[in-house]
């Protein structure tokens, strides 16, 4: 074991007693840790554990109420992100901060001193190419950013930070938008960075395997406090989850065996155009039965969003038919589909699934305003809706001061619980759940998955769209990897193999022998 003294010598970034108070949630209390050069130090925590606050403090967006930050042993006081960048802190946000219409190299040059007043493309290009080679990033520097995949865009941001001379690289949920092969490449690059004495600090809510795979040490946050700090060697997914949530979490779900009933959803040769007018969904056909979860596994942007929208009636079908319980609903409006028993849990909780400035009651009304029971003769029965909302809040453990607060005030996990509660309470025949656990913490993921399994027991047909192979495999009865708008295959879960599905998600066709 190194002595305290040695650690301090090595530490590039050190936090001592960082405290930041906000009323209610998202505070940091007495946070201590040090990050050493050459180490991958993951910060793990559920939503609302204070990760974002801490990240913003490290990057100079917030100033701590108490406590100090040390960089290379010297006390620093970041007034703004610019101070942090100058010291050598690089930050890669979850939301991309790139100019879409510009090329990779232009984005990297933006604001960099070497770019010069008269742009010195040659020098920058050479230096950036060297960086890319060193850390194993494969990028076409002349490509426009809008042409790149989400993973490539993230690489651009990482290189941009490195090129600015970052010694500490903070990554916010670095693997959340990546396909399995992309994740593997990123992890390799991160390892190389650590070997060349950079400190890498990924902030992660779930994806415990990733944490175990790459990080040397983990600091776990819960309720704004550091609850555990240990070397990853010897840790297991279970032990990580336990210190995150504060109790045992079942990581692997047991299959719920439900007898497969009659077909509920029959989709035949369904195609649809995307917003940008290209064919995003290309003639898919499948059937989902009562008591069955049908998983669509894919990296986002491969047509699964369009599929969900076409089924929910939000996008029109270019070709094909949709049958619900044998009835053709292809031309039905969204409202008619809600009435006939389609329930849609959209991936965009804030942009589509809820109205931020509405109270929870009004948010629940989104799926009930057309029901005579709650809106007799066009006048809303707010008493009945309030009762319904209170019941849903209680049944789904939505953490909220009450039904009158605005949806804006809920954390991602609680908002998702509310949306799920609202949709499932209608007892839909078909549930379309698009990325239902995306961005949730371990506890909320477990809850959401269990509710879907419960719905399965109640004989609903469930279309689960997921970006995570583990989730798709562990929940679904059959899995269909989707790539560029086509279902690569439809595999019963008993035959599905992780690597095989992952390869198909990346566009590699199944071998002929396996058919």
């Amino acid at each position: 074991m190194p002595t305290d003294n040695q650690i301090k010598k090595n530490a590039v970034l050190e936090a001592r007693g960082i405290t930041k108070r906000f009323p209610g949630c998202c505070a940091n209390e007495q946070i201590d840790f040090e990050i050493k050069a050459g180490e991958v130090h993951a910060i793990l925590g559920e939503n609302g554990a204070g990760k974002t606050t801490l990240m913003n403090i490290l990057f100079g967006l917030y100033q701590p109420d108490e406590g100090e930050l040390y960089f290379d042993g010297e006390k620093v006081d970041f007034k703004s992100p610019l101070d942090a960048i100058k010291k050598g802190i690089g930050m890669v946000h979850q939301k991309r901060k790139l100019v879409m219409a510009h090329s990779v190299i232009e984005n990297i040059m933006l604001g960099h001193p070497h770019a010069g007043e008269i742009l010195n493309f040659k020098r920058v290009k050479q230096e950036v190419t060297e960086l890319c080679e060193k850390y194993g990033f494969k990028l076409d520097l002349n490509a426009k950013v809008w042409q790149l995949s989400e993973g490539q865009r993230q690489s651009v941001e990482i290189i941009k930070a490195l090129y600015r001379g970052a010694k500490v690289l903070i990554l916010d949920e670095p693997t959340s938008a990546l396909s399995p092969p992309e994740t593997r490449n990123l992890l390799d690059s991160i390892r190389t960075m650590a070997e060349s004495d950079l400190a890498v600090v990924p902030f992660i809510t779930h994806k415990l395997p990733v944490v175990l795979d790459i990080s040397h040490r983990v600091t776990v946050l819960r309720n704004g406090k550091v609850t555990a700090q240990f070397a990853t060697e010897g840790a297991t997914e279970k032990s990580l989850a336990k210190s995150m949530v504060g109790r045992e979490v079942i990581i692997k779900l047991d299959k719920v065996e439900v007898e497969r009933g009659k077909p509920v959803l029959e989709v035949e040769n369904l195609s649809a155009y995307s917003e940008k007018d290209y064919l995003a969904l290309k003639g898919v056909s499948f059937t989902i039965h009562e008591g069955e979860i049908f998983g669509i596994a894919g990296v986002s942007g491969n047509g699964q969003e369009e599929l969900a929208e076409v089924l929910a009636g939000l996008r029109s079908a270019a070709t094909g038919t949709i049958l619900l319980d044998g009835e053709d609903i292809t031309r039905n409006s969204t409202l008619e589909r809600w009435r006939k028993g389609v329930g849609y849990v959209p991936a965009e909780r804030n942009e589509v699934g809820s109205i931020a400035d509405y109270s929870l009651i009004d948010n629940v009304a989104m799926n009930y305003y057309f029901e005579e029971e709650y809106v007799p003769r066009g006048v809303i029965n707010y008493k009945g809706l309030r009762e319904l909302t209170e019941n849903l809040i209680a049944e789904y453990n939505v953490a909220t001061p009450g039904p009158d607060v605005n949806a804006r005030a809920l954390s991602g996990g609680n908002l998702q619980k509310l949306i799920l509660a609202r949709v499932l309470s209608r007892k839909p025949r078909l549930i379309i759940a698009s990325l239902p656990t995306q961005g949730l913490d371990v506890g909320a993921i477990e809850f959401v998955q269990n509710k879907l399994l419960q719905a399965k027991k109640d004989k609903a047909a469930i279309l689960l769209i997921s970006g995570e192979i583990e989730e798709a495999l562990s929940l679904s009865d059959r899995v269909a990897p989707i790539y560029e708008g086509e279902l690569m295959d439809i595999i019963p879960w008993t035959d599905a193999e992780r690597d095989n599905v992952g390869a198909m998600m990346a566009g590699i066709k199944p071998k002929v022998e396996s058919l």
Partner: protein
Amino acid sequence: MKIAEHDIRLVKRVELPWWNAALISIFSIVVALILFSLVFVHSGVNPINGFKEIFQFAFLNRNGLPLTINRSIFIFLCTCAFIIPYRAGLWNIGMAGQLYAGALGAFGVMYLFGAKGDPNLYIAPGIGIPLMMIGAMLAGGLIGGIAGFLRGRFNVNEIVTTMMLNSIGFWFVSYMVKEGGPFMNPVGRSESFDLPVSVRAPLIFGIPFTLVVALLLAVLLYWVFAKTRIGYKIKSYGHNPLAAKYSGINPQVIPVLVFVLGGMIAGLAAYHYFGAVPGVFKVARNYAEFGDLSFYGIICGLIAQGNPLAAIPISLLFGGLTNGGRFAQGKLQMGFGVDYALLGVMMITMVVLQFFYRYKIVWIKPEKEISDVGIIR
């Protein structure tokens, strides 16, 4: 910011109780009056004296008060015409065009009765007056509906279309009432024919019955937005069109609906001024001034934050200021445009100080915890 040991911070509000909104509005009125004092001082008028003249004529004078109320009803109706689309997140800049159409609609009904050229024609008021109102509302709703349809079906920006329709409306009225137009006054004064005496609006204490209509409308709209399905759909679309679409609200219908309703109310405003206010009873030569006046509906609607009940006192204030300002300008022999300047200052301060609808200042004494702060994200 720090002053001595005290820390002053700007904090985002979580909620805004209505009395806070009212206090902020009153505060902004006071600030505006103080700022406008400079104009009085500049013109060599004692500000206290100046304001006394304005407010006395607007609200306490026997002759001034009815003028104020008539203008306020007009502004209030225009405010409602703005508010309904505003709650759906859409901007109605076309109250002027809609009220021009409404004026033609109302007088079109009288034209069909054969009222042109016979001011003494008898039409049963119980039939004639409602028909005039309906005509005004249909015409206004039609013009509004064009903008709503274009927005809903083809996503054409409603601000541009309503503005263009204003121009069309203006010239169409001109064509109808000026030289040789079908609605021209036979005596020929570039205005429409006179309304027959029999269908002049009934008065209550010298104020046309449209006052009651306006007040009922305020309550009705408030209720619609607070409690009904249709109000819920409009609000949902206004807050988040994607979420509204997700929950089954037809995104093509809502814009048409709100613009037809808004246009109808603007048409009613036209009926009020040209068909009900004593002493007018025609599409007046200066009808464009009322088009300009209708734009105060936008500012009143914004200050009222889309709340039709809050719009009542605000419309009254603006109606009073246009009226009293014009009077004081004449009486105190000040330069042209004092009334507009006063309204301008008032609007700017009210809009600027609406900042405090969303933020508040928190004063933190040393050694004390923050007790009253909103959530910062």
